[in-house]
């Protein structure tokens, strides 16, 4: 049995999670504490790196305390510390990495510097058990990636990613166009429920026959929504917020799920996994479920609190790495803001 404490500070959430791994490789979630600085960023319409870094410094030690308390553990019970080494905001990552090194050194336990994207995949095991080879779609304000994950502790194959805006970023920008608050995802989702997804046909980026098969592009879609809204405003027509939100959301989720199912089929994976903050979107979940079922694929989506950035996902990946006997990271471990997804564990 191994108890792993995981630290996540790649964006605006200070996350500390604790996962217990049984000898047979079953991961159990013991704590998942999150301190978010999202409200401090709201008036800027996006995450301000320096504001996030300052908040991480303040929140770090109290979050570790709360996690240990929730799990009913003492620091001396922890067998390993895992931390997001990248990708993410450089200054924000640095706070978590420095804290993780200090805890690992003081407790005299191994340190695992892990990949944030692989951690988004690993977290599902604390809810749904061991993961078979899977095709993962990770969508958030910072990433939009399609990954083939044959084994959690092994190398991940990136199949595609956004070539411009992340999916969550597109939600934020469109929300702003429609006068909805930041972060835009939940607001668009809510507004869209009252709207007609077929009201306006917005473009599906990178879906032509010559386009990169598994890459995404949301910048053109965002511009199309802006043009549509401005044209209405110019002519003095009230903007049908619900219809625009629903039609935009449909365009995003249509492309995401279509490419995901196609990739799963091509790579012979019968499990599809969603992760990242945008996985909380109700239309994405419903459409993914519909298309996976139709294609005979099994869909796994962690509950929303495990989809957004958190420490449990880092602890979960650390626990899998420790379980498979991976070599821990060095205390000189760097934070790498552009860490490649092929690197699951940073030496």
């Amino acid at each position, binding site marked *: 049995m191994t108890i792993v404490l995981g630290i996540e500070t790649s964006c605006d959430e200070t996350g500390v999670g604790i996962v217990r791994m049984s000898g047979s490789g079953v991961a159990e979630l013991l704590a998942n504490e999150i301190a978010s600085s999202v409200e401090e960023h709201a008036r800027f319409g996006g995450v301000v790196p320096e504001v996030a870094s300052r908040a991480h410094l303040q929140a770090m030690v109290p979050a570790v*305390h709360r996690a240990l308390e929730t799990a009913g553990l003492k*620091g001396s019970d922890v067998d390993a510390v895992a931390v997001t080494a990248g990708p993410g905001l450089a*200054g924000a990552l640095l706070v978590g990495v420095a804290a993780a090194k200090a805890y690992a050194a003081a407790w005299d336990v191994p340190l695992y510097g892990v990949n944030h994207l692989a951690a988004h995949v690993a977290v599902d095991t604390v809810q749904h058990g061991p993961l078979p080879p899977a095709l993962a779609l990770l969508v958030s304000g910072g990433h939009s990636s399609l990954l083939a994950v044959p084994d959690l502790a092994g190398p991940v194959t990136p199949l595609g990613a956004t070539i411009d805006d992340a999916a969550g970023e597109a939600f934020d920008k469109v929300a702003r166009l429609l006068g909805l608050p930041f972060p835009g995802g939940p607001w668009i989702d809510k507004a869209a429920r009252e709207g007609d997804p077929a009201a306006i046909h917005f473009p599906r980026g990178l879906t032509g026959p010559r386009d990169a098969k598994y890459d995404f592009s949301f910048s053109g879609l965002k511009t199309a929504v802006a043009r549509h809204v*401005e044209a209405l405003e110019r002519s003095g027509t009230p903007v049908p917020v619900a219809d625009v939100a629903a039609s935009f959301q449909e365009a995003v989720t249509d492309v995401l799920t279509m490419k995901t199912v196609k990739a799963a089929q091509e790579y012979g994976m019968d499990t599809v996994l969603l992760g990242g903050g945008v996985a909380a979107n109700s239309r994405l979940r419903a459409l993914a479920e519909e298309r996976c079922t139709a294609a005979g694929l099994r869909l796994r989506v962690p509950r929303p609190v495990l989809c957004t950035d958190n420490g449990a996902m880092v602890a979960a990946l650390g626990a899998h790495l420790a379980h498979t006997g991976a070599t821990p990271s060095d205390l000189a471990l760097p934070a790498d803001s552009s860490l490649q997804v092929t690197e699951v564990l940073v030496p």
Partner: protein
Amino acid sequence: MLVLALDTATPAVTAGVVRLTEGPGARVAELGVRVTHDARKHGELLMPGVQGACADAGIRLREVEAIVVGTGPGPFTGLRVGMVTAASLGDALGVPVHGVCSLDAIAQAVVLPGKLTGNLLVATDARRREVYWAAYEAEGARLTGPTVEGPDAVAERLDGLHLVAAAGTMAERFGLPLREPASPTPAGLVAAAAPALDSGRTPGPLEPLYLRRPDAVPPGERKKVHT
């Protein structure tokens, strides 16, 4: 008392184990010191430095009885590495963490060998053509600061301060006799925290001395997309 001292407020990444003895006289002795210079690698260098300093001092990390950390002012990203490391180590080891102004630690290090004949300027690099600075009396007590300003603005204020020397990474800008060190030393950090360490009081929360607000402006009117 065995004290671990850390500072990352300048390009020097500093870790040291210091013995603080009670009573008058030379009270601080550096048992192990590791200093590396790289303004972009504080995060990579600090913990190996802590371990090296402990090894040089012949102690285990868990034998440390208190931690002292420089709270700046200093460039934010590097500064936070030292502060979160100190806070986390203190929490994990169950020992108090005392924050001291990094400029105070430089001043204390300057006067450790003996008091000056007048006042001291301490100035470090704040980037963007500004300096962090503070002035100290001959025995190291702070007179004014810490402040962040352009060197010309600082120079205008120096006349009334009766300065006889300057220290810090930007000290040479002010035409005063230079004194070492340019960056906080473990002994200087512990000397600056000595009254708090002696008192045995629980230290207050660690507050970084940023002296500047984050660079961020709320967005204005949204930009139109031309059709």
